[in-house]
Structure formats: C-alpha cells, structure tokens
C-alpha cells in the first residue's frame, strides 16, 4: 500500500439511501491515521449512519443503497473489499454495552476464535493483552471465567472495547460509547480512548459536545445528512465557520 499518506479514510461524494430516504448527502471527509475524529449533531442527522458506512454495518439493513466512494488506505471499501474482512480491520463499539452472555474470557476470545485461533496459550495471551490495553485487566483478572453480564455497565463497555481490540483492528468506531454510563465510567472510557489513539484510528459519535471537545482532534458536525463543517476540534468549537454549526454548539437547537 505504500504508507506514504497519513489519510486512513477518504470519503468522496458519499450519498446513502434507506429506500427512498436520503440519510447522507454528498459527504466529503478525510480522516487521518492515529487521530480521534468525533461526529456531532442532533439525533437523526446521519452521524451514526455515516459511522456504519466505514465498516459496512449498513449492509445489514435492508433497502440501503450507497453512492460515492470510501477509500481506506486507497482501497474502495464497497467495491474492492469483502465486508467480513473489512470488519476485522475496522472494529466497532456500540452505544449499549453488549457483551455476550459468556464468560469474560470467552467474550474477549470470541474474535480470535472466529479467525481460527484455537491454541490456549495464544488465546490466553491475546485476552490478557487486550484487557490490559482496555485498562480493565486488574479489575477482571480474578473473574475471567465468570459471566460478563455480572459486570457493571462501565466495566461491560470497557470489556467490549477489549473484545474489539482482540480482533486487532486498525480502526475503532464508537457509537456513543458512554451515553448509557455514569460520569465516572465515562471519564475512564474517555481516558482510554485518548490512550488508544497511539495505535488506532478512532472515530466516535457523541451527543455530548464537551466529550467531543475533550477527546477529539477533529470534529465533523452533521445536520440533516450533510457534513456541514469538518475541521480541527478547537477551531470548530471556538470559531465555527458555518452559521448552523455556531447555532448548534451555542445551544440554539439540538
């Protein structure tokens, strides 16, 4: 691939339709490697839809049609890549923590196992490393074989992050990962996200503008399916170029 450029995703003229409803309108964004990009905007504005185009989770929704192109490392996601293999490179963390009703260990080992890793030593290693990376190893190391559903919401979400990391993705998509959590858990997850930036490209949808300001390098503001403004987070929040962005971040609607 010749990693000359720093661009992870190059999105060109992206239009997305759910049957006749147009959910995304000619979105043009470039997302850089090892940066945190946050997507903000009111409910139903297309930010989650946009997020899900990056690992083709929208493929699973019937009646979805995608136009334009998304290049990851220069390769077209929708035309030149298999969705299953893509999702192993672009992991996802969801709004509600959704661990499987299995043990902590089996949750983290799920991804490696479906890729055919069977050796116990290898799995042990991946589980430990992933949980450490997600900063939850110390809390869980003594209860690896207990059900993940017995954990608190915040622990469950960090476990889900560990589970995603175990697949060894290049990119992590996060769809409002803290909206179901308390402030302390939220802080822990935000710290974790910032730490993960070193090795991963992270794109996060958030309803919380302070969160976007705290964690992200770049921010995109979505409104009615349009990427109204995209730029360096500090600049976007202090000197929005578009009137609509200003109205939103100053709380005039949303």
């Amino acid at each position, binding site marked *: 691939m010749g990693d000359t450029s720093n661009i992870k995703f190059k999105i060109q003229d992206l239009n997305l339709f759910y049957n006749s409803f147009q959910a995304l309108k000619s979105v043009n964004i470039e997302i850089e490697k090892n940066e945190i990009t946050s997507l903000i905007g009111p409910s139903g504005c297309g930010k989650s839809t946009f997020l899900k185009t990056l690992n083709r989770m929208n493929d699973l929704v019937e009646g979805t049609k995608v136009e334009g192109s998304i290049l990851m490392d220069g390769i077209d996601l929708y035309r030149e890549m298999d969705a299953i293999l893509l999702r192993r490179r672009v992991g996802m963390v969801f709004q509600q923590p959704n661990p*499987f009703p299995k043990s902590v260990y089996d949750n983290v080992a799920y991804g490696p196992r479906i890729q055919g890793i069977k050796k116990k030593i290898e799995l042990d290693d991946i589980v430990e490393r992933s949980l450490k990376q997600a900063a939850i190893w110390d809390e869980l190391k003594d209860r690896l074989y207990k059900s993940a559903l017995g954990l608190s919401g915040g622990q469950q979400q960090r476990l889900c992050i560990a589970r995603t990391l175990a697949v060894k993705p290049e990119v992590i998509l996060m769809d409002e990962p803290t909206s179901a959590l308390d402030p302390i858990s939220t802080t822990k997850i935000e710290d974790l996200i910032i730490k993960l930036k070193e090795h991963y490209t992270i794109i996060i949808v958030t309803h919380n503008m302070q969160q976007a300001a705290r964690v992200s390098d770049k921010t995109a503001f979505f409104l009615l399916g349009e990427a109204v403004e995209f730029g360096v987070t500090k600049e976007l929040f202090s000197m929005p170029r578009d009137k609509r962005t200003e109205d939103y971040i100053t709380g005039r609607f949303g």
Partner: protein
Amino acid sequence: MQLQKGMFRKEYFWKWLISVCGIIMIVITIVIGAFLIYKGSYTFTGFGHSIGEFLFSAKFSPNDSYSGSNGSVGAAVFIVGSVLTCGLALLISTPFSLAAAIFMTEISPKFGNKFFQPAVEIFVGIPSIVYGWTGLTVLVPAVRDVFNLPYGNSVFTAALVLALMIFPSITSVATDAIRGVPSSYRDAAYGMGSTRWQIIKNVVLPAASSGIMTGIILGLARAFGEALAVAMVIGKTRVFPKNIFSSTSTLTSVIASNMGNTFDGTEYNSALWSMALLLFIISLLFIFLIHFISAKGEKKANGKD
C-alpha cells in the same frame, strides 16, 4: 371524591370469582394426582406385587379378577418401548426442528413469518388420530417396503409418526427462544467480522440454548404421553423389540388398547393404573426439568452464574 355505589362489592366479587377459578384448577390437579396414586398403588398394596417386579420384570400377564396375585405385572417391555420410541422420535425430530427454527429466524425471517410459521402452526392443530391413521396407511407399508420387512409396524414407524407430531412443538419453542436473543449480540458479532453461520453457531444458539432445551423436553413429554397414534402403528406385541424395526408396545399404547377390556378393581385394571401413575410421575419429572433449565438460563442471563 364521592365513592361510586357498589364499587367495593364489584371489586370483591371479581376478586373472589378469579381466585375461586384459579384455586379450582389447582385442586383438580392435586385430585387427579391423588386419584392416580390411589388407583395405581393398589397393584402393590392390594395385590402384593413389588415395585421392582413392576419396573424390571418383562412378564405381563395380570388376571382380570379380584381374587389375587397369581398373575404378573412386569411393565419393563412397555417402559423400554416408550423410552425407545420417544428417544428415537427426538433424535429424528430435533435436527429438523432446530433447522426450521434457525431458517425462520436467522436465514429467511420474511418468508419464515409469512409462510413457514403458519405452516408449522397448522401441524400443531392436526388431531393425533389423523397422524395415526395417516401413519398406518402411508408409513407402515412404506417402512415395510423400503426396509424389506414382513410387517411395517415397528418402533421405527412409531418414532417417525411421533417425530412428525413433536416437530411443531419443538420448532415453535426453539423459534421463540432464538427470537428472544437480543439483536445487540448479533451486531457485536457482525462488528467483529463474523460470518452469519459463525454468529448462529457461536452466539445465537448458545444464548438460546436453555429455551431450545425446554422445547426439546416439551416435545419429549408430548411424545411420552401420545397414545393413539403410537398404538396404531407400533404393532402392540408384548416382547422386547429385537431392533428398531421390530414391533413392541409402549405404556400408553397398552393402556389405550386394554383399558376398555378390564373390570374396575381387578388385578389387570390396577396394573394399567400403575402404568398411568408412572406416566404421571414421568411427566412431572419433565416439568421439573424444564423449570430447572429455565431457572438456570435466567441465572445465566443475569450474570449470576
């Protein structure tokens, strides 16, 4: 605020009516159980047979008289017959039921909801006599011809009929169980690059396993209790089956075909009641098993395991 006239009278009237209806059902269940114990135990208390003889002896020739214990009441042949036919029916039916449930929920939910599920529900409504008669007319000769046997009445034929009868029970409970698996599990698994089959095998089926087990046990209970259809195709010989293609009898088929020919209170009659009691106890065990499994499943779902 003014109280409406007669408000409390109505309140109490309905409360009592509903309570009485509920209590009557419980009382009836207990009375049936007590009656079965009273009738079924007379073989042992009145005619002096041992429980060991009843359960383990293969000699069944009770006298149709009130006088005494010169007959024998060994029901082992019928117990083995019941276990064998039902076990075989379950082995045949479970894979088809599971496949149908997976197809309806995971593979083709649209077609499943519109056509498959109604078709399965129709299966449930068919009376057992129709299954039995169809089995007798179609399956018995077919089994005879396909396997080149002198007679088509056999354990295998009975198991086929039973498999057909319990297929919808297992399928509908398993379908509900699979539908109950939260879609967030599927999302998570898709998000990690799972294929559909990997999700079904590694996520959906394990998460639905306690519900699926409940369906299987429900099917087994139905198979155990089915008399008519089995009696029509099993051949009703009173010997242990040599293999699955020979005929035998089951607990239910013996009761169904002999209850009209005995006098109340005779040794023969009591022996049949003992078998009925045994069936009652077995079905109770199945119900306990279902409760045990679903309680365990619930515990697992709440993360207390």
